[in-house]
């Protein structure tokens, strides 16, 4: 990496500039109040999206039924989102798709976060060659475009939900690892850690009792920030026909079907599922941004969308 003489011309990921601009220009215009409002609105939107994704497919009388007498119907009172190429009601299908996409994203994020936290904690607390080796692996993972590596994984373990979960989980942990590692490095020289070690505590004990509780907020924040990535990743894989099996109506699968339908003029097959996807992504990133401002005021995460 290029180092700076003055240490200010090149912020990592543009982060410090943003905070500088916010303190100078943002707070003057009530920036924090607006950020809080945005975070609250995001929570409301996200909760309603999740509720609808759970309830709509559950309460609908006939979910996902093929009906060749009403193929590619534009939106109308009976079918608020229209119908798809097999005559399935897109309203129910889209919400069911959002449920599957969110579920896959949540599980993959969990995999990523656990893996990343473990690697980061071990690298940060052990140091030495363990740290160097693990960080080289992190560098390597970060220098492969995630979608491409994900495609390689699903291609070789094709056609299962597990493949998609692993494809996302195994490619997104590196950023979490880095965040957690730097947190651990910051902890290492704290007096209470020194005290524990001089009192005869073992490495694993310190890791479990002192380090883990301290890194949990960072890890959870990273996890929340990863969710939109995971949703995007799953959707993109499914859209390309490489992700979830076709019978699972994920947003990506619906959009993949919509690709041919758009050419026939059926824009609604793309627009409505895409709207749900975009609303979810924006709500999650709005929530994460608001939370980050409150929980970690001085540091801007490299994970920002």
């Amino acid at each position: 990496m290029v180092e700076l003489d003055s240490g200010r011309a090149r912020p990592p990921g543009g982060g410090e500039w943003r905070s500088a601009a916010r303190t100078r220009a943002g707070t003057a215009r009530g920036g924090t109040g607006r950020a809080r409002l945005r975070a609250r609105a995001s929570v409301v939107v996200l909760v309603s999206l999740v509720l609808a994704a759970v309830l709509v497919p559950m309460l609908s009388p006939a979910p996902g039924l093929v009906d060749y007498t009403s193929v590619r119907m534009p939106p109308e009172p009976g079918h608020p989102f229209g119908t798809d190429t097999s005559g399935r009601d897109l309203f129910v299908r889209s919400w069911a798709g959002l449920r599957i996409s969110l579920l896959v994203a949540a599980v993959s994020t969990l995999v990523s976060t656990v893996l990343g936290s473990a690697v980061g904690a071990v690298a940060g607390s052990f140091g030495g060659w363990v740290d160097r080796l693990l960080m080289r692996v992190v560098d390597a993972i970060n220098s492969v475009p995630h979608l491409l590596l994900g495609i390689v994984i699903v291609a070789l373990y094709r056609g299962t939900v597990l493949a998609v979960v692993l494809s996302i989980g195994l490619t997104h942990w590196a950023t979490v690892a880095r965040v957690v590692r730097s947190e651990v490095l910051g902890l290492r020289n704290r007096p209470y850690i020194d005290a524990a070690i001089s009192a005869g505590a073992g490495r694993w004990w310190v890791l479990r009792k002192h380090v883990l509780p301290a890194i949990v907020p960072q890890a959870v924040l990273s996890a929340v920030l990863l969710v939109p990535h995971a949703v995007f990743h799953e959707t993109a894989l499914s859209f390309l026909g490489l992700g979830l099996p076709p019978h699972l109506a994920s947003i990506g699968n619906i959009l993949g079907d919509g690709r041919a339908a758009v050419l026939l003029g059926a824009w609604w097959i793309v627009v409505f599922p895409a709207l749900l996807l975009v609303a979810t992504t924006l709500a999650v990133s709005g929530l994460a941004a608001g939370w980050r401002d409150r929980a970690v005021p001085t540091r801007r995460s490299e994970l920002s969308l």
Partner: protein
Amino acid sequence: MRSEGRLGRRGEAVLWLVLRRLVMAVPVLLLVSFGVFLLAAASPFDPIHQYYGVQIFNASTADVARVRAELGLDQPVLLRFWDWLSGLVTGDLGVSRSMRQPVAEVLAERLPWTLLLAASGLGFAVVLSLVAGTLAAWRQGGWFDRTVTALGHALEGIPPFVLALLAIALFSLGLGWLPVAGLTDAGSRLGAGQVVEHLLLPAAVLGVSQAPWLVLHVRQSLLAALTEDHVTGARARGLRERVVVLRHALPTALLPFVAVLGARVPELVTGAVLVEAVFSWPGVASAVVTAAQAADYPLLAVLTLLATAAVLLGSLLADVAAVLLDPRVSADG
């Protein structure tokens, strides 16, 4: 004389930076290719089935074993990795199973189209973000700024393939201005006019999908730059507003922009994969999808390495540009 000497030192520093990065790139590339190789080795997918196709049911066990030995598939993973690696170094990239031609040929045919698309898309994104970001920061809080900021945040959440489908629906089917997909119209010959016509929409979609981060970044750095002492100084000297913003504040703001640009190669690759797939653009990125569908390991591995090299090159170019542009930066890392 003095300035010449300084330039010479800078040049030397850049040379060392490039050399050091190249040396550092070797272990990363090795690690990536070994990782991909291990993934393939652990895969339940057996390449021998692909070699035979349906004929595997007619082949005798002895034949299958013989072919397996001929293809070197019966050897341990490390040995196969070594074979593949030494082939790579000597220029033998293997044979693509899904395209049924040498991987080198696939690259030669498809790489130029991807470079054309990526360069046009990135160029479009840079111009768009510089113009929009500068105008937005200039009149912070005005209607243009609010529109740009809101649009930028909204676009961040829209995946490139949705953007591509919407663009096709609007510009190709709705308005009929531009062709839907491909490189040329059916039956017409490959010519510059045809290619430009077919390039416009994918390049614009790729550019717009990359632009939000860049626009918001330019805006933020310019806002920060506008509060700096040398800008206040320029204002105090009574310079015109245009000179202050474009000649004093913007150059400061552009330095981090170059770094961000170099760091965005992974997203550019991701965008290219999706955009090429939607528009049936005959580049290497859409070959990734074809190769993945056929579990075409030799092609996938080379394309992954290529993308990794592109990412490393992007960050190297950004750092070189930073060293060349900013005298405060020292090249010691």
